[in-house]
């Protein structure tokens, strides 16, 4: 362990830089070409993870780090996938509830009801005017 710094040839950085440009252009093209459905989200995810990998691996020097650090940072991120799964189920359930109980087929426009409107019926029932 003579030196604790990371030093790599400039060409490595330039190649990754170009690669990130190409991958960004590809993901932008997905929108530009108007791909929809499975093609769209599979390509978006593919380019996203490729870009994330190259930024982490080369720019952040992850491929040259010791396994002790790499795993300490990489393994905890799997908890995120579990959380995504949980909230995926939860949001489906919430949407079902909203469709069953609240969806009138019209856009919701009423945000507040005047106080007098809310109590109109109860006043009439009691007969105090």
């Amino acid at each position: 362990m003579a030196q604790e710094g990371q030093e790599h040839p400039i060409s490595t950085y330039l190649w990754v830089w170009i690669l990130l440009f190409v991958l960004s252009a590809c993901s932008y093209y997905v929108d530009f070409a108007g791909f929809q459905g499975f093609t769209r989200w599979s390509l978006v995810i593919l380019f996203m993870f490729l870009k994330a990998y190259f930024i982490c691996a080369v720019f952040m020097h992850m491929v040259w780090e010791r396994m002790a650090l790499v795993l300490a940072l990489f393994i905890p991120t799997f908890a995120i996938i579990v959380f995504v799964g949980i909230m995926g189920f939860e949001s489906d359930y919430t949407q079902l509830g909203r469709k069953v109980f609240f969806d009138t087929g019209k856009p919701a426009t009423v945000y507040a009801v005047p106080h007098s409107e809310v109590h109109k019926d109860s006043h009439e029932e009691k007969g105090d005017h």
Partner: protein
Amino acid sequence: MATTSKIPLKDGMDGFVSDWASDQRAFKGVPWGKAMMWIFLLSDTFIFSCFLIAYMTARWSTVEPWPNTSEVFSLTVNGVSVPLLLIAIMTFILITSSGTMAMAVRSGYQKKRKQAGALLFLTAVLGLSFVGMQAFEWSKLIAEGIRPWENPFGARQFGSVFFMVTGFHGIHVSFGVLFLFITARKVLRGDYDTGRRGFFTWQKGRYEIIETLGLYWHFVDLVWVFIFAFFYLW
């Protein structure tokens, strides 16, 4: 600083086990500042994950249609509407700034003071232009009537998610720019050669600081990759 070990370090999974079982330090061959930055970035990963998961939950649970980001974020150039043009430019600028940052780290370790300082300065300017474009985008959308509680394009959660996620990322970029300018000034003045003490911590700095700052800056770029994919392209 450097712990010189007589026993050679093992590599791979054997190295992982022996490093974690060892005395004094688990992260060998890494300056403590860099290890701490990595741990901070891991916690920041969870914060941004929570934002993006909240966005996913809002989008999947709403019964109103989600606004078409391709149209909301389009710019009109010479009478032609180009989808996501500004966002694409912002993406390329952030990647470019990551490239200059990586090269600044390299120049720093080679003790090329002026080159490292200039590259840090360039990174900061690129970051500043990113924040400027984001401010332009925000004011454009606010003028179009997008608010955290409503918008004319569809589901009301769209505005809250947009301002929350891009705002938090923008704050990260802004603080990164601030520290890039500070570090660029220190490098150009030769603080890491002369051992001049910092104004806040009163510690002597080293060129490793550029790599630690670089990790933060690349992380900001990394987060943008996910925001770009999930929020703008999805």
